[in-house]
């Protein structure tokens, strides 16, 4: 099966500070992944790992410094024609973190639906549009009657997030980009939103890029997962392999640090934390080297390539079985000799 979305060597630099003391941070560094049709793909990591920047690059809110984004064989261009843009946004829709910020509080929720219908020419005439909107709202467990005439503040957080998802579904997209869609929703109704993504995948064949910091829900909902750390994807593969048998030391740390909802599984050891975050971005080799319990000399100097272990991509020299490490070391020695 062909991939729905192909991301290749995506990179984004941000610069901070004044002209004289410029600080360049690579927020997304050499990120490549595929999203298959009817698949929930999770991009997980802590804040500042580049997951939201990746989403913004895909949606075209930011221009990548380098790299390519290919959606259904159509390469995303720097300055797309209007027709291309409409085609792309019709297929790729977004759901954001806080539904109360997604919608303008002074605008009735249904206005967004009619606007989307008009922008994409989805229906002819008001009656036709209404039935289309009703149909879409039914898919998320709401109806046009419940939504029409109401302002965003009149919905609960969970309901409004459903409205936001329904709005995204209106164009019948093949890919939904959901950036932390449940982090603002109460625990008791969180799973109903998460289940909705599963249902969309199974019934309509919609693919979802599920961006989250919550590995437990990611495990529950997604098929494949990529763990990001300071701009790199450090581990990527089937969720069962990645989260149940983590390979990269960072994934291990992350996995152990999730407080499990089981009083019998309390933590015993302690962790070390960084004081200053941007130092990790500027690190030369592997960015986890400063905190890694299994750090080697080579990690401090070189960014590890992706190694494949049991069908999982791991960006870590620990899995370097073919001796790439020694090659690098040798070449360093010869460089010195010259």
């Amino acid at each position, binding site marked *: 099966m062909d991939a729905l979305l192909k991301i290749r060597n995506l990179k984004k630099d941000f610069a901070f500070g004044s002209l004289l003391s410029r600080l360049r941070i690579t927020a997304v560094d050499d990120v490549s992944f595929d999203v298959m049709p009817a698949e929930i793909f999770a991009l997980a990591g*802590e*804040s500042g790992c580049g997951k939201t920047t990746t989403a913004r690059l895909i949606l075209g809110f930011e221009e990548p410094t380098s790299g390519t984004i290919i959606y259904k064989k159509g390469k995303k261009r720097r300055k797309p024609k209007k027709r291309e843009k409409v085609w792309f946004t019709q297929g790729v829709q977004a759901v954001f973190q806080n539904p109360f910020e997604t919608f303008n509080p002074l605008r009735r929720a249904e206005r967004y639906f009619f606007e989307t219908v008009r922008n994409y020419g989805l229906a002819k005439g008001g009656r036709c549009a209404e039935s289309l909107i009703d149909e879409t709202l039914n898919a998320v467990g709401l109806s046009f009657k419940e939504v029409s005439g109401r302002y965003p503040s009149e919905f*609960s*957080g*969970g*309901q409004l997030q459903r409205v936001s998802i329904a709005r995204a579904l209106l164009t019948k997209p093949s890919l939904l980009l959901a950036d932390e869609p449940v982090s603002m929703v*109460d*625990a*008791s*109704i*969180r*799973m*109903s939103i*998460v*289940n909705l993504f599963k249902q969309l995948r199974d019934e309509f064949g919609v693919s979802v890029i599920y961006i989250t*910091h919550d*590995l*437990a*829900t990611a*495990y*529950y909902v997604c098929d494949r997962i990529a763990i990001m750390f300071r701009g790199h994807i450090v581990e990527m593969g089937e969720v069962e392999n990645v*989260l*149940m048998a983590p390979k990269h030391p960072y994934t291990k*740390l*992350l*996995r152990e*640090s*999730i*407080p*499990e*909802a*089981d*009083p*019998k*599984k*309390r*933590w015993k050891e*302690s*962790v070390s*934390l*960084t*004081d*200053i*975050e941007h130092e990790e971005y500027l690190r030369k080799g592997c960015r986890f080297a400063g905190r890694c319990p299994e750090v080697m000399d080579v990690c401090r100097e070189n960014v590890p390539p992706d190694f494949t272990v049991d069908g999982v991509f791991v960006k870590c020299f620990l899995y370097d079985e073919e001796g790439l490490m020694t090659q690098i070391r040798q070449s360093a020695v010869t460089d010195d000799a010259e």
Partner: protein
Amino acid sequence: MNGVMPRTVLRTEQLKAFYILDAFGTEKIVKAVNGVSVQIRENEVYGISGESGCGKTTLLKALYSAIEPPLRLVGGKVLYVRDGEEIDPYSLSKEEKRRLRWEYVSYVPQGSMSVLNPVKKLKDSYSDFLESHVEGKTRRDTTAIAKRHLHELGLPPRVLDAYPHQLSGGMRQRVTIALAALLGPRIMIADEPTTALDVVVQRGVIQLLKSIQESLKNTIVLVTHDMGVQANIADRIGIMYAGVMIEESTVERVFEEPLHPYTQYLINSLPKFGDKSMRQSAPGSPPSLEKLPSGCPFHPRCPHAMDVCLQEMPEVVDVGKNHRVACWLVEGGGDGRAP
């Protein structure tokens, strides 16, 4: 329990705290805490959980005696037990209350960025704080005390020379917690101390809270909506729903044998590693505290709702083994398990 009842340090009796708002002549009453009785013991971590808008933070404010209009104490009592003596903080003078704060009960608020003064170095914040509570100390003494304190808690003393914005969120939160523990309070009240932190950092913050509690042998009242955090640190948990404490027990029992249907939904909907079976959320959405449903506030969402639930709020009953629950299913003499 070894026969000896642990001593209570903080208790409330039918506490009611409402927000009374006067908007254009019409009075609006938000019943944020609606009759809560808890007994919090010495040397324990007492967790309070519930959805946003269930009154957790308001309960904490009442416990810390920081009630300010439009929030008002409508009924009931908060009592601190200090050296066997019961003190009602609301009857104290301003000065007495100020003495009590930080020395006997301290507070770790949500969002550490707004706690520390952004234009002062941390050592100045520490000094200000020490000068107002400990008399006859010079600047050098206070800095030395602050340094020693941070060192004991395993935090780098060099943060004292930094401004709050120069620290990472996790370090800032830990410094705030350290500040709250500086005078060795018997009760520490923490409001969502780990929310908005990354998992690894969150773990560090929880570790710090735990180690403070273990060394001071004091009481921590921890509010968080994250059940994973509760499972990791709390000894006992109270679950709040719409301003009422609906269930309270040891952490093990709440996770293994929740009796209230709401708690059951809450626990059963938690995703677990290694288990991909379908999870169900509680139906409906949380009620508005302005217009509470009649009877038990959970009845519109409850799959086991009976006629009596629509009419009357169930009393909190003790089902033994440190387990208290407010539900008619339990009142009815059954074992409370959903039929």
